[in-house]
């Protein structure tokens, strides 16, 4: 394990230990926050009882759909924009300021258009994630060595084959950075939308528990989201590190 990873674990352990002490000594009261060990126990109990399984499955599957949509549309759009300079010049400033737009403000409009089902939530997750994928993929495509593109031409590869076999593999570390961000953004989009208005999902359950001072449900759910997000991020980081190591970049 790298030194950075050890420090990371030590910092996290320190923060958890600090909250544990603050909660156990009553510096933070139980109505405000549970001690971390209690959150873990409640999470185990919650998963064991299966009470919230439907909500967990709903949120994760919607986030998964939003993520896949964002990846497919984002990567395809980046390749198209890379080829059409004018379109890119038009859209680049919009990408730069995109995250200043409060995407959740469009949620009511999406509910009006698509109803209070999964679709508006998936669209919000998609809208949050897709630009991160486009921007990072474009960043990677800009760095594809020209000689590799010439090699593709010499091998009589068409546009699609060049994109799939040369450009994307060459840009893979950057695309992966986009994927990592998209995982986080799609989760934020889905859970945020569920939190605001929904008939189910983890965000809805957190919101419901929050409004009812049900810390025994709210904190374990937050912990679960943190665990899912961290696990996916760690897996992608390991993959990214492997790619970079192969290329002598780390």
């Amino acid at each position, binding site marked *: 394990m790298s030194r950075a990873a050890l420090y990371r674990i030590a910092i996290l352990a320190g923060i958890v230990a600090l909250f544990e002490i603050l909660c156990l000594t009553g510096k933070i009261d139980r109505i405000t926050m549970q001690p971390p060990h209690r959150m873990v126990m409640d999470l185990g109990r919650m998963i064991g009882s299966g009470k919230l399984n439907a909500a967990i499955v709903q949120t994760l599957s919607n986030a998964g759909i939003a993520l896949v949509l964002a990846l497919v549309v984002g990567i395809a759009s980046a390749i198209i924009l890379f080829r059409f300079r004018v379109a890119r010049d038009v859209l680049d400033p919009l990408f730069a300021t995109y995250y200043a737009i409060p995407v959740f403000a469009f949620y009511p409009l999406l509910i009006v258009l698509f109803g209070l089902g999964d679709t508006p939530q998936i669209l919000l997750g998609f809208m949050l994630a897709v630009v991160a994928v486009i921007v990072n993929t474009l960043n990677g495509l800009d760095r594809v*060595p020209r*000689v590799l593109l*010439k090699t593709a*031409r*010499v091998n*009589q590869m068409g546009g699609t084959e060049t994109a799939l076999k040369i450009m994307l593999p*060459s840009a893979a570390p950057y695309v992966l950075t986009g994927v990592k961000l998209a995982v986080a953004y799609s989760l934020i989009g889905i859970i945020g939308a569920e939190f605001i208005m929904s008939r189910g999902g983890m965000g809805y359950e957190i919101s419901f528990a929050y409004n009812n001072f049900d810390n025994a449900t709210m904190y374990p759910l937050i912990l679960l989201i943190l665990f899912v997000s961290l696990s996916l991020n760690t897996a992608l980081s390991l993959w990214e590190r492997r790619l970079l190591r192969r290329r002598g970049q780390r």
Partner: protein
Amino acid sequence: MTSAAHVTLRAAEKTFARADSRETIHAVGPIDLDLHKGEFFAVVGPSGCGKSTMLELIAGLTEATRGSVEFEGVPISGRIPDGVGVVFQEDACFPWMTVRDNIGFGLRRAKLSRAECADRVAKALQMMGLEAFAESYPAQLSGGMRQRVCIARTLVTQPRLVLLDEPFGALDQQTRLLMGEELLKLWRHTGATVFLITHALDEATMLADRIGVMSARPGRLLEIIETNWPRDRDSRIVEDVRFGEITARLWRSLREESMKSIGKARVA
């Protein structure tokens, strides 16, 4: 060597538009040249004279602004013809593939049988001295070894016309001589026409049947020198007294052009 024209350039010229103004840069030409089928032709010239542009015209990577370029009697107009292999000056290894996969890239695309691919790749690995590195990634290799991978990747597809843009530039002198020998062996074995661009006059002298000397930009062929070496030759040809004579003649032709290219006044 046969005399049939394999590649023909007729008054071929290339001009580029400058990115920062409406001016154009006359990069190369007009050039008239016949590459004979199966010959080894080298081009030497001062830096920036348009050697690589000339190669790109023949490869179909860029289109002639004026004149014509033909390969096997078919005009090349910015279209990459079949049977052409190019080794570039820059490192063109695919960093996400192992050496074995890099070399087999073109073969897999040609949909050869798995056994045929494996056999040809194994031979290429052996010929290039890369057997021990077959499962390594390019980042784990030296610059010279990476260039050998690129050469192997091109030659393994057995192109009828091989275009080499300073392929040995990243190699040390001894390796260059040995790689030159390997290239000569392959050339004899495949019967391909080879068009080599190089800065190294001795490399051109050792490898080529004919050497084209280019002027400073816009690059034109000043003269073509025939080496008259036997087809069956290797790096020991450097011991031949004519080797020095040809290299000296090349330098005589090139000296003034090289001075022009670095902005010096006309030499006496």
